[in-house]
């Protein structure tokens, strides 16, 4: 067991973790951040996506120890104070949500894209979301949502 200090959603969190503990386990099982979804635990589906220093990573492939000293953002950190992030609002408005199991990962991957590329074209978007599986929507409305979010963020920035 090691003591780690984690920066999760701009809050500091000190806890003891096993060397082999995966970030998804720490987030879900120990901190109750259940918006990070468990779907394959093999790095294939993107449902457990979180942001690490702004980059989308799969929390099932990362040891909690590796996340020490880096900024971790989970879906719970996307709307501090209850105000939705433009990406979240765009997902609602575009009808990009169906069962919702991929949604947290999709929203975070989209945010990571838009933070780096404020004017993505369709090709940029589909490539950025390539690691996030969705079985419901066929991705059509997800891509529309990200496009709309880019426009909305441009207006507010």
């Amino acid at each position, binding site marked *: 067991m090691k003591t780690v200090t984690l920066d999760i959603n701009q809050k500091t969190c000190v806890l003891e973790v096993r060397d082999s503990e995966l970030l998804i386990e720490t987030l879900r099982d120990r901190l109750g951040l259940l918006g990070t*979804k468990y*779907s394959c635990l093999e790095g294939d589906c993107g449902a457990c996506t979180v942001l690490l220093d702004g980059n989308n990573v799969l929390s099932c492939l990362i040891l909690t120890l590796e996340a020490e000293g880096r900024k971790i953002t989970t879906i719970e950190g996307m709307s501090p104070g209850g105000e939705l992030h433009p990406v979240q609002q765009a997902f609602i408005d575009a009808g990009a949500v169906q069962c919702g199991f991929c949604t947290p990962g999709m929203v975070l991957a989209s945010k990571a894209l838009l933070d780096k590329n404020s004017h993505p074209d369709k090709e940029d978007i589909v490539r950025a979301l390539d690691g996030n599986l*969705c079985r419901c929507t066929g991705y059509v409305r997800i891509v529309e949502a990200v496009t709309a979010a880019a426009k909305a963020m441009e207006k507010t920035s």
Partner: protein
Amino acid sequence: MKTTSPVGKSVPRIDARQKVTGEARFVFDMSLPGMLVGKMLRSPHAHAKIVRIDTSKAEKLPGVRAIVTAEDTPKIKFGSNEYFFPYTVDQFPLEFEKVRYIGDEIAAVAAVDEETARKALSLIDVQYEILPAVFDPLEAMKPGAPAIHTAMNNIGVMMPSSFGDPDRALKESDYVREDVFTLPSAAHAALEPHVSIGQYELSTNRITLWASTQAPFKIREAMAKTFKMQEADVRVIKLHVGGGFGGKLEMFPMDFCACLLSKKCGGFPVKIMCSREEVFSFTRRKHPMIYKLKSGAKKDGTITAITGEVIADGGAYCSYGPTVVAAAIMRFMMVYKLKNVRLFGSRVYTNNPISGAIRGFGGVQSGFAIESHIDMLARGIGMDPVEFRLKNATDPNTTTVNKLIISSNGLKDCIREAARRSGWRDKYGVKKETAPGVFRGIGIGVAADVMGSKMYKSHESAGSIIKVEEDGSVYLFTGAADTGQGSDTALAQIAAHELGVAYERIRIKAADTEITPFDTGSFASRVTFISGNATKNAATDAKRQILEVVGQELKLDVPGLDIKDEQVIDKNSGRALLSFDRAVVLCYSFNYGRLIIGRGNYNPKTTPVDFRSGEGNISGSYGFEAQIAEVEVNTKTGQVKVLKMVDVHDIGYPINPASVHGQIEGSIVMGLGYTFYEDLKFKEGRVLNASFSKYRIPRSVNMTEIESVFIETNDPQGPFGAKGMGESSLLPTAAAIANAIHDAIGIQIKDLPITPQKVLAALKEKESGRG
């Protein structure tokens, strides 16, 4: 709160905020005090006798709380089509005589943690006597093949569909052709894995099960039966469900075992979670099929007869086999006017994993076979495939040869509109080489929707309750299970419209078998149509109760009153009399003391299908669509690129257009997967590609341009004219693409998935003159 009706508008999903913020809770996320980890012990053999199960070593392992085998159960079988097909009830929650596939459940363990549970499984000593196994349905049907159940030649389901005189009709045809199509297995691949939490209350002998399910009431029935309990003593609760697609439509042994383990360990809740590998290997899968057809046509384009044989690999147990076979051999009669039909469906037991329901039931397999075959018939008589379909398409207000009663029917409009929008006339049959060796083509397929299929019980009723509280809040209780398709939202829209209030007022509670009214579940595209009508009726009832009080108070005739835009109005003058809020307060006040509780139910008008002939009206109404694919085929690499899909769909009326488009887009992209690469592979009963890295489902980079268009036929039975539509857009996709490939390069692939290797092989065969 000034509003107008939400019906027909793309209002935000009722659960959208919870889902985008990660607050939506799925059973996978749930934990309860004292909860234990459960795990299933599964057979490593495809076919074996169970000689002995010794759990003594495992029981001694510290941390193990309970181990169950069939000896802890009443040993009662369950099945999914019990009402019409009692002989297909063939599975025990825990097997004890023999195992029939790799994964068959024989014991379960509850322990303090995952590691202990896993270790306990390894300490259970099972002695097997290996039996010869059979994996190929054609082999399984031969005399002398290993007997998996007691069914003769391992044929668990035999189903005919027989009308007219097909032999004579074929003789009188100008053109007859025979084709054989082969369809692989596929996985549902819903993102939330299967999960159950069971809790047994020892003081009352009652069970609560939290499950990721499409059909809480169906699970309740199977649980009660296999536990030998009253249905009332089994409570099944659904939270948000992370996708289903037919894969979460039944009770699974893990549901049963979570509750049984809880009983045995003294009432602690037990959670059993499937790994992704378990979902792929041990839940359900699509029936692989061999689809043989022999059909004829007249020179004028009339289809004279469709005949054939369908053989489905059912795997180890029957599951929803009868429904799947019925869909496979009957569904095309919704789209084509036919007088002579003879199909025979056989669902064969093998020692493969269990085949079951998956979006479209057998309609996807039949969609590929029939719609490819129809194109080939059209070409055989030299007719344009669009004209050929228009010539044979069913009409509104008709009864088909198998006694389907079709009222509204926009099929011909769908075909014409899809052809117009895709530029069919200018493109079809025109050779277009866009780059050296790269050819474009266009192809069509059509399909029909059912909205319900009465194959689970004698009725298909759904109920709704609407409770209006004194503060004006409106609760809608429904047993319908939204698994992501958006039915909760559609039902809330329907309730709001009918009650005359804002959509935002509606809070929906679904589904809990102890609290919400009965509903058979989310399958057969039935929820908007059936549960929607039930909800509309409940809202009408609640409104009537409010208006009665208002009428009494204001001394006005109730029939002259209505509620619109949150106001009680005089229907004649349109004048607002008082607000909805005030009307509700009035209902509750002083000597009225009326608690507003509206109730409604709906049972679609159908006639039972006679499964000896295939005759009967299975659904309360029917929806229709036409899909046109445009492709580009590279003859050097065999690669096929889908440039665009046009889908024109008679949806009756769209309660929520964005949701309806979302269903169509999701289906088409799922169809692209099945067309090009989805293929659940097996070797001696073991799944070879049980992960997302090996079983590829469409990713964002694989999506294609989709133009989705509605034809509004305003169905007389549908709520606000709406029809069900969640499955059929998957049906014609593969055939439309295969037909487009033929238009591009002159080869017809009859074997899914359409891989570059198959395209190249077919091209080679064609060039050598054998194609």
